[in-house]
């Protein structure tokens, strides 16, 4: 009888310990703590300019500022004149627990409107600066939260919108590509359901709360890629 009690206790302890170890290993697998090298994230400069511009219709992109990733952060490659800024986003824009947080395959071409340049781009550039400086995913996220709380980083201005119409992007492992061409705008924190998102598969938009940046993104798929070709019908969010 006593042996059976010891056996049960030992089994319970082993299972609990094993489960905790497994969770820790899984967490470590999800997101390595820091960037190992900037090299895998760098692109040919002209290719990056072209990819960045492919995010928007030519009528927008041709007069936009283009920024490309260098060894010390983003730098202006082309000066624009319409207030838009086009960049190719990298993986560290994801939530800290996203398994692809350091995935060098991630390329998100995006052209931001002037209000978004003022109120969203600084957050992404800060993330990039911290990533290159060797901060961990957890530290990056904490710094963003702190920066917004202190008013050092902005929250979205009205009219903050972006174009993501490139068929060259690779947004994440889930879609393994560019998802659908879409217009994405940034709204101060708002419940996605109040926009109709998640109420049914027949709703033609996808909204998500970005609790770290204290805003909600609203994606509205559109009919054509930036090169004018029609996009295939797809369902689900990205």
């Amino acid at each position, binding site marked *: 009888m006593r042996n059976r009690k010891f056996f049960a206790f030992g089994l319970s302890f082993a299972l609990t310990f094993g489960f905790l170890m497994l969770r820790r290993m899984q967490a470590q697998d999800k997101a390595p703590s820091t960037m190992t090298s900037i090299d895998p994230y760098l692109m040919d400069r002209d290719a990056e300019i072209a990819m960045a511009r492919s995010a*928007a*219709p*030519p*009528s*927008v992109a041709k007069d936009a500022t283009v920024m490309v990733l260098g060894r010390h952060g983003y730098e202006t490659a082309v000066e624009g004149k*319409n*207030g*838009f800024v086009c960049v190719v986003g990298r993986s560290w824009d994801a939530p800290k627990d996203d398994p692809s947080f350091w995935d060098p395959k991630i390329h998100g071409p995006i052209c931001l*409107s*002037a*209000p978004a340049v003022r109120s969203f781009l600084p957050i992404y550039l800060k993330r990039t600066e911290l990533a290159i400086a060797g901060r961990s995913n957890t530290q990056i996220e904490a710094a963003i939260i702190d920066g917004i709380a202190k008013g050092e980083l902005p929250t979205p201005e*009205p*009219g903050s*919108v972006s*174009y993501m*119409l490139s068929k060259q992007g690779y947004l994440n492992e889930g879609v393994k590509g560019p998802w659908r*061409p879409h*217009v994405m*705008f940034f*709204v*101060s924190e*708002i419940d996605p*359901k*109040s*926009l*109709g998102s998640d*109420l*049914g*598969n*027949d*709703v*033609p*938009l996808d909204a998500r709360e970005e609790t770290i940046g204290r805003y*909600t993104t*609203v994606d*509205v*798929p*559109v*009919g*054509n890629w*930036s090169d*004018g070709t*029609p996009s295939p*019908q797809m369902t689900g969010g990205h």
Partner: protein
Amino acid sequence: MSTNLHPIEHEELMAYLDGELPADQASEALSHLDLCAECQTLAADFRIVSQDLMAWEVESQEGGISSEIDAALGERLHKREAAKVSLPRVRIGVMPSRWGWAGALAIVCVAVGMTLMLTSRNRNEDRSTAYPSMASIEQYLMPDRNSEIALARSAAPESISRDAKVLVLGWRGYETAAQGKNGFVCMVERSWMAPFNSAEFWNPKVRVPQCFNPAAARSILPLSIKRTEMVLAGLSKAQMIDSIKAGFDNKELREPEPGAMCYMMSKAGYLNDALGHYEPHLMFYFPLTDKSSWGADLPDSPVTLNPQFQGGPEPITEFVVAVDKWSDGTVAPVM
């Protein structure tokens, strides 16, 4: 080389006022007209000319021909009759006909010109002044309440509209026909939600199904309610504009809340004579801003500006993003 820096030529503007532009060009012209003071002045001038032409008539001689002229004409006629008798026939045929043919030709030219002008004038009258004033209220009402409820709900996908509140237009304004539980409000707007300078401001055929999200139900819907109340109260456009301005000044009306938007995905709507039911789309509302900040209305942009408000007088900007399906799930044709 043209020095016109506007996206529409003067001839296109005239064609727009005459309702002769295709839908896409009409939309572009309307967008530009709403923002361009110079073109608004030009359009007003065109309309004045058109109205003057319509008002112009050949004055009738109510007092008859004066006695002096009458006497002179009588004397001349008498001489002509005498000449008919005294002059050889061939001379009668040659001398008067030279001046006569010239006069006749002039009369024909004037007559043809007048006919062409009046034809053109009547065409303008049929189109640009098709809806010069408010029709009887019955023409704006939908006789079947259930049809209006169904039309209102058709603005959004069923997963939204089935739990939305529905308003219908009655004799005294909009009234609640169905209570909702998800914060969305669906209704069928009428023509007076068009820009005040729209030629179709009083078009009784217009039916615009819309479902406002909660943020728009709080900050945009009150505009529809207010305009409707003023219309039914018989206010003039100038009075309505003044009242709306005052409403924003005294905070009775307010700027759009963040995230204010609406669904317009009904294939049964009738936006206006130029667009018909248009295409399924979403509309997003912002405090008044320039359309260039969104890249709207550029040739290949998927975003367009709806000139519904745009400071005239509501300080609100509406951006439109087309979607690919109607609310019933069927695929919309590419426009």
